[in-house]
């Protein structure tokens, strides 16, 4: 699969995330869930920011900063490469 | 030489006083008028005076009771003998001898009778006179019955005759009646005596007038005419029973009326009986009926306050007005709280339920208080108030409100959970204190096992009895307090006040707090300690200025008629002292209804009471109910007086701030040094 996700994930509507590989569970907030969904769909960091700004009420620079931070967190949690 | 002069002046003064006693008006001015009236026939008057002196001296020689003697009682028989002899006999040396001997005998009889009657607290009235005069008249064969053979002052007689023509007979007789007390038969004497009585006491005068009138009617009714009417018995008995020996209330009015009618009957009966022996009945009826009517009153064992007809103890008798005042004070005193109470806790508490409260303080349990502790938010507990320990009052020390002996207690009742009451054992854990004056304090709802005193133990004011709990009929921790007349649990409560304390920030010496009032005990941080209570034999004189009049009052430290420490005044006014933990309260009794002759009439009211703090802090003073900062001035609560304290801590001056011209200045004088 051309996904940079580490393993299989199941994401619920409410933001509950299950990592099939490690068995660990996470909670994502609304924005987080939206982004993760996009990742699952195959989007990359670059156009994610665009997607976020068109979906949510937020300034671009803030969105960029936050998305970067979010990616860092995901990397740390070994969810993405 | 001085001692002799002293003695002589005493004798003269006492004899002079006797004239007043004669008409139930023992005071110099009426005495003077009566003395003057007796001199309508100068020789008769002189005989009266002589008899007076003899009997007075005789009584003194016999060491009669000092107080009674000084009041002038023993001179009365002498005067009457003199006046009677003068009226009924020709003037001669023989008569004078009879006079002197008779007066002497009357004195002896007076002393004996007085001593015997004292057991029953009855007055001797003019019984000695009656005994002696009848003896004399019988043994000397000098019954004559006319006064005309005595010389009288010429022009006075003419006035009298002129008046006789003007006035209708009844009125003339009526006015003359008062003179008959001193065996005078003229209008002038009558008027003089009337004035004398009226000056001393209006009540006496009114009763005298009424008695005389009723007497006339009675006499007329029984005799069908006014011939031979002598009003003296009627007047005398109304004076005696109308405020003098018996308190003048409306019951006394009916009593006197009945007595007057009885007098009429006795008098006429006596006259009829004595016709054969030619003895005038004189004041027989008066003496007999008075004693007859007084005796049953004196025999009553119940408390005076419960009676309708109130006999006055002999040693207390002053004017009818003063007697009335004494009686009112006495009955108020009987229901007055004897124990001085202070709040039974530390710090500031709040009233949950006061007297006549809406939950449990009703009926016989009306006069009680429930105390709780509230915080700044006015809550009784912290947090949600779900535990007993959340309540601020829980476990706080409960103190004794007054000294006494622990009568009984209960210490084993379990504390209720919140909002649950134990109605079976209403008081829960309680303590009852006997204050040894007929009053008992009851504190309830103590914590189980927290009471630290034992029955029979003597406790002082403020001693810790136990801790506040929630036992008995108690939904939340609180202290319940009540004063009662007997030690059994459930006895009716007495209305009472706390002797002193802070109520909502004001210092009160008569605290009767209501629901939601904030109360705490009073501690005055003292600097100097100060007290107005003197020692026995100390005497303070003060001069009272009221613009144009200066009045002097001397106070001697003693005990009053109720047995309490009192300042006894020279002017027979009563000052009563009540000692509170932090104050001394002095109640002057200027508010009497005195005769016009006592100086107190001229004095403006000093105020209901003087409240003096016992411990002074430097530089503090009072204003209204509040302690304020001031230089030397102390103002007291009720009437805005100012008291100046001198350097040695004694009062030097009392001023009324509103009336700057009115002030007392006090000088202390020790009467032990002469």
């Amino acid at each position, binding site marked *: *699969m051309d996904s940079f996700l580490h393993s299989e994930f199941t994401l619920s509507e409410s933001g509950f*995330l299950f990592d099939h590989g490690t068995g*660990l*569970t*996470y*909670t*994502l*907030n*609304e*924005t*987080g869930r*939206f*982004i*993760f*969904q996009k990742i699952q*769909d195959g989007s990359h960091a670059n156009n994610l920011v665009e997607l*976020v700004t*068109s*979906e*949510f*009420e*937020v300034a671009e620079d803030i*969105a960029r900063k*936050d*998305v970067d*931070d*979010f990616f*860092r*967190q*995901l990397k*740390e*949690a070994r*969810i993405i490469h | 030489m001085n001692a002799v002069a002293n003695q002589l002046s005493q004798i003269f003064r006492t004899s002079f006083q006797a004239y007043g006693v004669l008409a139930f008006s023992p005071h110099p001015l009426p005495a003077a008028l009566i003395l003057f009236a007796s001199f309508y026939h100068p020789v008769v008057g002189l005989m009266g005076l002589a008899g007076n002196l003899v009997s007075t001296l005789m009584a003194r020689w016999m060491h009669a009771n000092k107080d009674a003697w000084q009041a002038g009682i023993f001179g009365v028989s002498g005067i009457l003998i003199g006046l009677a002899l003068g009226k009924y006999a020709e003037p001669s040396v023989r008569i004078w001898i009879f006079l002197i001997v008779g007066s002497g005998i009357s004195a002896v009889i007076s002393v004996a009778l007085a001593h015997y009657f004292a057991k029953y607290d009855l007055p001797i009235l003019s019984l000695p006179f009656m005994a002696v005069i009848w003896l004399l008249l019988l043994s000397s064969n000098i019954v004559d019955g006319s006064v005309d053979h005595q010389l009288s002052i010429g022009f006075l007689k003419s006035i009298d005759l002129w008046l006789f023509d003007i006035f209708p007979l009844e009125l003339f007789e009526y006015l003359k009646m008062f003179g008959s007390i001193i065996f005078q038969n003229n209008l002038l004497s009558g008027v003089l005596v009337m004035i004398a009585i009226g000056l001393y006491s209006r009540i006496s005068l009114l009763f005298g007038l009424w008695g005389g009138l009723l007497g006339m009617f009675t006499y007329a009714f029984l005799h069908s005419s006014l011939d031979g009417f002598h009003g003296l018995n009627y007047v005398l008995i109304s004076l005696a029973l109308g405020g003098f020996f018996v308190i003048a209330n409306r019951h006394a009015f009916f009593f006197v009326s009945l007595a007057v009618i009885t007098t009429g009957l006795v008098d006429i009966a006596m006259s009829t009986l004595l016709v054969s022996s030619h003895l005038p009945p004189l004041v027989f009826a008066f003496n007999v009926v008075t004693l007859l009517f007084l005796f049953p009153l004196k025999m009553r064992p119940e408390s005076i306050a419960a009676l309708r007809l109130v006999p006055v103890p002999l040693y207390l008798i002053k004017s009818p007005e003063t007697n009335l005042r004494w009686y009112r004070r006495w009955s108020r005193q009987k229901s007055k709280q004897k124990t001085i109470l202070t709040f039974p*806790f*530390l*710090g*500031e*508490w709040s009233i949950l339920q006061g007297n006549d409260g809406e939950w449990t303080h009703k009926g016989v349990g009306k006069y009680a208080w429930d105390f709780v*502790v509230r*915080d*700044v*938010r006015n809550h009784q507990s*912290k947090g949600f108030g779900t535990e007993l320990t959340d309540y*601020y009052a829980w*476990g*706080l*020390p409960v*103190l004794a409100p007054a000294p006494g002996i622990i009568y009984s207690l209960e210490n084993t009742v379990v504390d209720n959970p919140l909002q649950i009451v134990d109605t079976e054992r209403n008081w829960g854990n309680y303590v009852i204190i006997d204050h040894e004056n007929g009053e008992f304090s009851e504190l309830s709802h103590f914590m189980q096992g927290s009471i630290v005193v034992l029955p029979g133990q003597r406790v*002082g004011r*403020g*001693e*810790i009895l136990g801790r506040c709990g929630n036992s008995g009929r108690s939904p939340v921790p609180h202290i319940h307090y009540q004063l009662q007349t007997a030690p059994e649990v459930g006895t009716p409560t007495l209305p009472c006040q706390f002797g002193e304390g802070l109520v909502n920030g004001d210092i009160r010496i008569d605290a009767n707090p209501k629901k939601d009032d904030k109360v705490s005990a009073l*501690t005055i941080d003292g600097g100097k300690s100060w007290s107005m209570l003197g020692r026995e034999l100390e005497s303070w004189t003060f001069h009272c200025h009221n613009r144009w009049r200066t009045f002097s009052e001397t106070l001697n430290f003693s005990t009053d008629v109720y047995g309490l420490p009192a300042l006894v005044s020279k002017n027979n006014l009563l000052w009563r002292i009540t000692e509170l933990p932090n104050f001394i309260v002095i109640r002057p009794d200027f508010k009497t209804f005195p005769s016009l002759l006592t100086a107190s009439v001229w004095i403006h009211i000093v105020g209901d009471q003087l409240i003096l703090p016992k411990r002074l802090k430097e530089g503090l003073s009072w204003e209204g109910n509040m302690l304020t900062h001031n230089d030397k001035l102390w103002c007291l609560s009720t009437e805005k007086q100012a008291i100046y304290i001198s350097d040695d801590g004694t009062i030097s001056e009392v001023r009324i701030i509103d009336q700057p011209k009115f002030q007392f200045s006090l000088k202390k004088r020790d009467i032990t040094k002469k």
Partner: protein
Amino acid sequence: MVVFNVLSVHSMFSQLLFAGSSLLNLKIRTDDYTMTEKRHYSKPTIIRHTVGVMNKYGRPPATVPMNRLVGHEVKELVENYGSPLFVLNVQELRDNYRDMSRAFMTRYPKAQIAYSYKTNYMKAVCSILHQEGAWAEVVSGFEYDIARNLNMAGENIIFNGPYKTKAELMRAFSEKALVNIDNYDEMQVIEDIAEELGTVLEVGIRINMDLNSPPWHKFGFNLEAGHAFEAVKRALASGKLKVVGLHIHVGTYIDDLTIYSRAAQGMVEFYRYIKEQLGVTLKYWDMGGGYASHNTLNWAWLPAEQTCPTYDHYAETICPILLNGPFAAEDAPKLFLEPGRALVDEPFSLITSVAAQKRMPNGGRGIVLDAGMNILSSVQWYSYNFQTGQDSGSMIEDTTVYGGLCMNIDVLRESASVPQVRRGDLLVIPHVGAYNISQSWQFIYLRPNVIAIEDGEVHVIKKAETREYVQEFEQVPDTFTK
């Protein structure tokens, strides 16, 4: 070919699946796209679920914003008075005093609170407490001067401390202050003063006991070693001094009530002993301070909400023991208490702004605030809680809170639960009144405004420093300038 086909079928299949699901997703997304307005944004977060024991102790969750403080909007206060900002809730200060007063006065006939100035000697704070009826407890000539300057009469000042100059003592005695003697040298100086003034001076003696670990032996005379008795004896021996009071101060932040009961017991027994042996009658005894507040100590196992005794607990411990002393109820010596933090800690709060946030190498989060140990030196002992001054969402994260000083030790808290805040957001730190202001450092930053709010009205009780003010007493000789 077959292999290839299988593979391709397989991939096609999965792709179909994928496409199918994305179609589904598309569908949902289409639905989403039918909404014209944008959704509310909050910073994306991912929180791992941890297995373990949840902290069951009640604390207001950090996610509940505290956007109003004493009735005023936190944001508005900062706009008007800057950040950081100390805020005093005057009513709470008054209530604390009244509560403590009530607790002791309902258990002891004569109790008096003397506020310990060193905790926070701002004029406004001391004035408010004096207005409520507190005396002043001072430990230096400087503090004594502050008290006198606030119109406190000398006789309402208690002067303690191990170092008092002769001039200060002379002033204190002339103005009838209560002085508690700490050591023999001081006693000597006071005797000289008595000589000069020509009167017998009334003094108190400070004692200490072996109560805590480590024991507070620095101050006063030790009771167990017999030094205290010797001191009283020595004081009376010269005939120039009269011992009328005893003073003990058991420690700071004592939440162990047994220490107070042992101290009270010691005082009572000592009084009994000196009364018998030396005929001393006390006018007062001073139980000092040390009462705890609702700040949790760094090394504490449980939060302060659980462990801090109430005023009633302290009063219940101390008063009944003291009432057993050798005296009748109306002659009970006056009881003095010297609370500091127990009164003044909680009414103060600090509003601070987030300056920056960082992602630490270990993945944890760090935030930097504009307040540091310069105005919060008590972080050495306390673990402060942080509340947000605005709604920062409900996702809390374990965060290291750094102060704004350029010093590595300036860490306000190693690990705190803080919601997702960003630069410019406000945090409110409660219970900062004790020692933070009086012990603040003039370091790197100027000290900020302090405001007091009562009945809705805001008063500035200390203006922020300026450079001119800080440098006012400096002089630069010409030889140092270019």
